[in-house]
């Protein structure tokens, strides 16, 4: 059987890749995809903890369900904002959308 630390290390690597994507990417949709990577790493962590440490109450799995639901809401709303930004500014580059008004 695979020890729990393996899942934690994998999740840590995924989360760090997501952090790099959020910080370095310029396209807003790519930033959003990196956020999805981070959310995935977090739910993997939750589920690993629940399966190894707490299989009777499954609290971490409940958390993962809520994380997935909120991530779905977040991605829908964020993509709507990206599409609106692109329509108003003809760009999806987060560096060029630096002002809060126009």
């Amino acid at each position, binding site marked *: *059987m*695979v*020890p*729990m*630390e*393996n*899942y*934690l*290390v*994998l999740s*840590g690597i*995924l989360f*760090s*890749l997501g*952090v*790099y*994507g*959020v*910080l*370095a*990417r*310029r*396209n*807003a*949709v*790519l930033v*959003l*995809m990196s956020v*999805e*990577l981070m959310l*995935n790493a977090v739910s*993997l962590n939750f*589920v690993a903890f*629940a*399966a*190894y*440490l707490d*299989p009777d*109450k*499954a609290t971490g*799995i409940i958390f993962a*369900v*809520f994380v*997935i*639901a*909120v*991530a*779905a*809401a*977040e*991605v*829908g*709303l964020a*993509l*709507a*904002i*990206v*599409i*609106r930004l692109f329509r108003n500014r003809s760009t*999806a580059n987060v560096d060029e959308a630096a002002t809060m008004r126009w």
Partner: protein
Amino acid sequence: MTTEVLWWMFAIAIVAVSAGVVFSRTVIHSAIFLILSLAGVGAMYLFLTVSFIALVQFLIYGGAVTVLILLALMLTRMGVAGKPEPTTGVQAPFGALVALGLMFTLIGVAVSTAWPGDLGGSLPGVTIETIGNEMFNNYGAPFIITAALLLVAFIGAIVIARQEDGD
């Protein structure tokens, strides 16, 4: 033994495609790598014997979220299709520094901590009954609030993305 070999194959594949998401120079390739990465994490849930979350992962992430992202990519396409463009800003080296530091911290903590109550050996498995009982007995209010949140978020998304007459 077979499980472990399979696990390592999946883990290496997930890290590789996730790196593809972050480092790929064409946005469509990033989106396809993202689909593979999400599916791989779903397979990880199967390794953890939590088939319910794996199902949810495949349905919601593998289906709905990736379709939304592909749609947004098509609607916000700037250059010629498939043409590589500079996708990282001047801040990329600092981002890499932060991410590397975070990665080593997370791995260090995960490896060096003695987790209490670690079952170590074979997993007992979490059934859908357990999840359902916990969810509706102890987390009923958050469940309803999440439902309202989803509704409000998607109505908001429609309102924001709607084509207005003046545009």
